[in-house]
């Protein structure tokens, strides 16, 4: 069981090191296969630890420490892995979906200049995320947290010759760094009170802290979660992160990275439960994000950006779920979302690949007739995203809305936001679908479509899409809230769902019916507006402008943070650096030059004057010696 966890953790790292150290000695294709194999070995390790844990009667968690990593007085942190229901579930999702995405990359990145670097980073990304979910104490969690930020930076900026990709990578890194900092601050508070970062002692401590301290800790953790999961107000990096290769987007959105925030809240739920206000604030942020992101997605014209905003929106649902205390439902949505979001991205990647890099949905019209397999796969993903039964999204999303409904007026408000989100999801998802797939192939598509030997893509790309399509369709049957709930039982030892978030059967039924009806309504409206393919964006000038500027978040941050900093820098350069720092150097140089001019005159070139100086000097020294004696 524990060996499986260690294997799972270090197999991807071994893959990275192998690719990096082998360098040019292995062919480019081999790098892809090494990376894929390493992640699938990790998946095997995850399965091993899953069945190992299942065989135990006590599933509250098993720690294994390799060595003590840091020690200072009574503060001690080891390199520890934790095997408990939550971590094994995350291991399975991360390594499983991650492995499929890396396999897909072999076909997608074929022929790129720097495949070896790409695959080394992909393995590193999976390793970082596994570190995050398996780390047996808060510090290791933060290590994984930081590594995920680093690998996302490396992969978003993978095409480093594009200035926009480099800017997007920087933006993602800076936004995530804000979250890392708040998390580190909250850890300092924990260390100050308990001098330990073990999960157990930290959680035991939560009850004994003063309200201020516990709220600060929870706020710090929430800051980290919000940054990593791209929730308002730190959401602006996610759509820009679409600059990376498509499989990277799939990896960031489905298996790793953005789900980390949800995992964090579920993992540290004991702390959040003692700071219930902060936890409910997390749910509120999730609700706000899911509506705002859904609205913005309505006007995007880049296929990947539409899907990116849908991710923000779905992560909003997960925040809503774990925020009200329905941890199992949030984690369930995390899992089904990993399936259908990876599917949507990879299917979109097949289109982009076949069209030679084109991402504008207004040009893709009618591609479904030429690529039927991709069309069906995408449709399955889209239906799962909207939450139409029996596709997977239905089971997970509706259980979250139902859980929210139970919690008084605030919960009702959250549930209403969730229902509005369901309608928006139907609208923007099927706007995308109707614009891209049905109808006669456009001139652009006919001209630019390059099929792979008459197929829609190489087998390495189509196989993961097929597997994910099956998972997106059937994955939801794992849990059907009122009837059977193995996942909730599985997570019960570590993250017990709060009683406040256990809806009655009637509430489940009502929320499901309304949500599905609204989702279908969204699809219907999308058909009415975009079914004929006449236009791609709605014509409501004022609203459209706001949405296209993404509610002016970028502009606001620009004015609030970037501009003052830039002005301060300009001012310092003009009034401090140039007159003071630079001028000092110049003055010193000029002084030395003048001194040299003066001393130059002593060098007459006449041998006899030198001798005279020498003699005079000797005489003076002699006189001084005699005088002193």
């Amino acid at each position: 069981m524990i060996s499986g966890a260690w294997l799972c953790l270090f197999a991807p790292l071994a893959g990275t090191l192998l690719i990096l150290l082998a360098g040019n000695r292995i062919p480019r294709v081999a790098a892809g296969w090494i990376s894929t194999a390493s992640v699938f070995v990790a998946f095997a390790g995850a399965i091993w630890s899953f069945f190992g844990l299942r065989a135990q009667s006590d599933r509250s968690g098993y720690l294994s420490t390799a060595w003590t990593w840091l020690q200072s007085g009574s503060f001690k942190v080891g390199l520890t892995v934790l095997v408990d229901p939550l971590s094994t579930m995350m291991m399975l999702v991360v390594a499983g979906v991650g492995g499929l995405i890396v396999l897909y990359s072999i076909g997608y990145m074929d022929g790129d200049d720097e495949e070896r670097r790409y695959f080394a980073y992909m393995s590193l990304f999976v390793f970082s995320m596994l570190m995050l979910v398996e780390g047996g104490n808060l510090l290791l969690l933060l290590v994984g947290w930081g590594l995920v930020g680093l690998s996302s930076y490396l992969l978003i900026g993978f095409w480093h010759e594009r200035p926009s990709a480099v800017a997007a990578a920087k933006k993602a890194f800076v936004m995530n760094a804000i979250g890392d900092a708040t998390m580190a601050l909250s850890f300092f508070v924990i260390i100050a009170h308990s001098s330990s970062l073990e999960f157990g002692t930290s959680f035991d401590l939560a009850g004994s802290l003063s309200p201020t301290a516990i709220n600060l800790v929870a706020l710090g953790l929430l800051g980290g979660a919000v940054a990593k999961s791209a929730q308002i107000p730190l959401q602006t990096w996610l759509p820009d992160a679409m600059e990376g290769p498509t499989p990277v987007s799939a990896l960031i959105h489905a298996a790793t990275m953005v789900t980390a925030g949800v995992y964090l809240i579920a993992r540290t739920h004991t702390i959040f439960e003692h700071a219930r206000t902060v936890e409910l604030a997390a749910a509120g942020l999730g609700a706000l994000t899911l509506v705002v992101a859904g609205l913005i997605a309505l006007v995007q014209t880049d296929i990947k950006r539409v899907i990116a905003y849908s991710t923000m929106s779905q992560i909003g649902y997960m925040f809503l779920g774990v925020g009200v205390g329905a941890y199992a439902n949030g984690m369930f949505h995390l899992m089904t979302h990993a399936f259908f979001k990876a599917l949507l991205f990879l299917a979109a990647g097949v289109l982009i690949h076949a069209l030679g890099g084109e991402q504008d949905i207004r040009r893709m019209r009618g591609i479904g007739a030429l690529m039927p397999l991709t069309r069906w796969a995408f449709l399955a993903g889209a239906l799962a995203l909207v939450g139409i039964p029996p596709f997977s999204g239905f089971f997970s999303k509706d259980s979250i809305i139902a859980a929210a409904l139970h919690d008084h007026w605030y919960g009702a408000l959250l549930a209403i936001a969730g229902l509005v989100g369901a309608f928006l999801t139907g609208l923007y998802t099927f706007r995308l679908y109707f614009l891209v797939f049905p109808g006669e192939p456009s001139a652009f598509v006919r001209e630019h479509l390059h099929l792979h030997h008459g197929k829609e893509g190489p087998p390495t790309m189509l196989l993961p899409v097929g597997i994910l399509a099956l998972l997106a369709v059937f994955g939801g049957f794992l849990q059907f809230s009122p009837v059977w709930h193995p996942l909730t039982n599985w997570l019960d030892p570590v993250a017990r769902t709060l009683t406040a978030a256990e809806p009655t059967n009637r509430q489940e039924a009502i929320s499901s019916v309304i949500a599905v009806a609204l989702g279908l309504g969204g699809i219907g409206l999308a058909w009415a507006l975009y079914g004929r393919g006449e236009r791609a964006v709605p014509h409501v000038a004022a609203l459209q402008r706001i949405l296209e500027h993404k509610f002016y978040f970028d502009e606001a941050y620009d004015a609030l943070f970037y501009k003052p900093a830039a002005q301060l820098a300009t001012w310092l350069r003009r009034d401090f650096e140039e007159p003071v720092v630079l001028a000092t150097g110049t003055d010193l140089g000029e002084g030395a030059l003048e001194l040299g001019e003066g001393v130059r005159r002593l060098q007459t070139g006449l041998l006899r004057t030198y001798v005279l100086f020498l003699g005079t000097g000797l005489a003076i020294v002699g006189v001084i010696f005699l005088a002193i004696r």
Partner: protein
Amino acid sequence: MAGPGIAWYLGIAAFLFGTGALGVLVRRNPIIVLLSLEIMLNGGNLALIAFARHAGNGAGQIFALTVMAVAASEVCVGLGLVVAIHRRRLTLDVDELSELRG
């Protein structure tokens, strides 16, 4: 021990050194300058040997031998330079040879 006292030796040594120094200072012909340098060195040698005898150990004599070796090599180099200057048809006058003036 018979013979004049150490003061006499030192007096002659100082005289030789002064003569040499004056020659170096006032003469412009490099050959004469070199010659004056040799006289200065020999003044030094005389003082060394006088002190060696006065102190009753041989260290000063060893020094004198070293100085002679140095003087011989110095003359080799110096005369070589003088010949090289002459071959280039430059005037043999140390005041004219002031290329290093700053």
